């Protein structure tokens, strides 16, 4: 006789033990887990205690927030009124004051498109159209023409110039870099060696050299009637430089795609460009998103090198502003301000990159 079959009922889940959660547990786990960590924690606390109070008293307690240059004389604090007085030139350079609504409008449009992109609520198709349109609109607003009074490129500067160079640079060097990476993998040796040659050439030269070449040497070679303006040449230099690095980043992603993915796509009858566009690239780009965002942040920071070829970007304008006879001796405030703005923008890009990584498919295996 066999015993009757029993039903299996799993035990209900129970909460974790209290010792595994809470503030004290966190402190012990993260700051005082062993004697060496405890030592490091104490040393860091001492260092902070030394450094923070003077910084606070300089930046906040003794700081001068408003008023003319004379109020800053003899204070031991920061002279933030310098930033207020020079904000215009740091943001838009020597752009004519009576026309400053135009860069402002361009800035508002830019902020709008950025917000729409970051929110993640807009359709990809809308965004793909919005960005190129934004550039046309911004270029028209800032540069004039077609009904607006033209403003010469030599008057563009400040943060506006930095953001413009970076935004155009990112938007063009990412697709160009992807094409280079795909070209490098091409079975046609002509195309692939051309791409390898270009990538290795660019990666072997510092950005400064490329900017110099673009700004100083190119005009010597190009015929007079083919002269393009300095800013455009510099922009092209930045794009070429950045795309070579992006190509290498993307190549890493392309190599990480398992062969089975391509087999499956081909087996469905997809043509090779469809396999690349729908199956390989989306996965490859997702793989390398962190490094890709890193390259974009680097590109934004690298735009500060254009000062070498005589363009006054955000940092360049801060330096120029501190040489004003009336406001002499406040470059520290200018640089701190620049650092904060750069940090906010780069940190924003970094956070946006993180949110992109988290979006999309979840993997359990």
């Amino acid at each position, binding site marked *: 006789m066999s015993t009757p079959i029993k039903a299996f009922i799993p035990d209900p889940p129970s909460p974790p033990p209290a010792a595994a959660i809470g503030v004290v547990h966190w402190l012990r786990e993260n700051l005082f887990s062993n004697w060496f960590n405890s030592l490091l924690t104490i040393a860091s606390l001492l260092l902070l205690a030394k450094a923070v109070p003077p910084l606070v008293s300089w930046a906040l307690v003794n700081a001068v927030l408003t008023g003319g240059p004379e109020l800053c004389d003899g204070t031991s604090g920061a002279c933030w009124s310098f930033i207020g007085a020079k904000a215009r030139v740091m943001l838009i350079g020597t752009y004519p004051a009576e026309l400053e609504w135009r860069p402002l409008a361009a800035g508002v449009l830019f902020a709008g498109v950025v917000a729409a992109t970051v929110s993640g609520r807009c359709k990809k198709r809308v965004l793909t159209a919005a960005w190129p349109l934004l550039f046309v609109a911004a270029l028209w607003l800032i540069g004039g023409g077609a009904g607006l009074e033209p403003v010469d490129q030599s008057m563009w500067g400040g943060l506006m110039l930095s953001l413009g160079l970076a935004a155009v640079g990112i938007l063009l060097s990412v697709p160009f870099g992807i094409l280079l990476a795909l070209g490098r993998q091409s079975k046609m040796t002509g195309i692939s060696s051309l791409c390898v040659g270009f990538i290795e050439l660019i990666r072997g030269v510092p950005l400064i050299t490329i900017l110099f070449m673009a700004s100083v040497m190119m005009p010597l070679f190009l015929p007079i009637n083919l002269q393009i303006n300095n800013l455009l040449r510099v922009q092209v230099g930045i794009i070429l430089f950045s795309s070579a690095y992006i190509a290498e980043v993307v190549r890493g992603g392309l190599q990480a795609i398992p062969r089975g*993915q391509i*087999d499956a796509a081909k087996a469905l009858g*997809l043509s090779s460009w469809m396999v690349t566009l729908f199956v390989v690239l989306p996965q490859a780009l997702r793989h390398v998103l962190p490094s890709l965002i890193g390259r974009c942040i680097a590109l934004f920071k690298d735009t500060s090198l254009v000062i070498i070829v005589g363009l006054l970007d955000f940092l360049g304008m801060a330096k120029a502003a501190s040489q004003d006879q009336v406001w002499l001796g406040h470059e520290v405030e200018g640089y701190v301000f620049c650092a904060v703005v750069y940090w906010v923008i780069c940190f924003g890009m970094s956070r946006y990159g993180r949110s992109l990584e988290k979006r999309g498919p979840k993997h359990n295996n």
Partner: protein
Amino acid sequence: MDTQKAVIEVKGLNKWYGEFHVLKNIDLEVRRGERIVICGPSGSGKSTLIRCMNRLERHQEGAIFVDGTELTGNLKGIEKIRREVGMVFQNFNLFPHMTVLENLTLAPIWVRKMPRREAESTAMHYLDRVRISEQALKYPGQLSGGQQQRVAIARALCMSPDILLFDEPTSALDPEMIKEVLDVMVELAEERMTMVCVTHEMGFARTVADRIIFMDSGQIVEQNSPEEFFSNPQYDRTKLFLSQILQH
């Protein structure tokens, strides 16, 4: 149906990987509605053979005809044939960045130029058939292996192929999930879908195969109906293989 023409014809096929001779003088015909099982020890060239049938691998000698068209280097011709030949892989190879529904509609939309709505309703129809329609909006990574493989089968079916190739569709699955995939395959076989399956599921072979092909070291050792193949193997190599595989 035996009177019908061969849909796959392999003639004197030879293939090498470098110096290594993987496929040796393979001759094989698959007629419409026929269900073929290919088995053999690991490394005998089963995957290579089946992958030659939709030219995921190139052969160096001999000829393969699918639906009367020879497989050559002509890319456009190959793409046309691949539309009619579905394939299911050991590792599912679903596209992890697309939902189940997107996996199923990609090829119908872009290759067959089917309107999205129609492609989606076809996809839902086949998901229903593999009993998984409630997962349509999930990503492959959220599904179990058995579910993923059923999605992969549905993906192939969405192109309404003439022929389905299976390369060890159940070998990457836990025992509990093998049955759910085999059930779907048996249903397809009962509808007289033309199938070429590389598999070691001898129960499946016994019940649905019209013919079993046994391969070893790149050659077809023998081919026979399931009854004959299991009860009366012609070669000692086949006997040895059967005794090993039927032990468990």
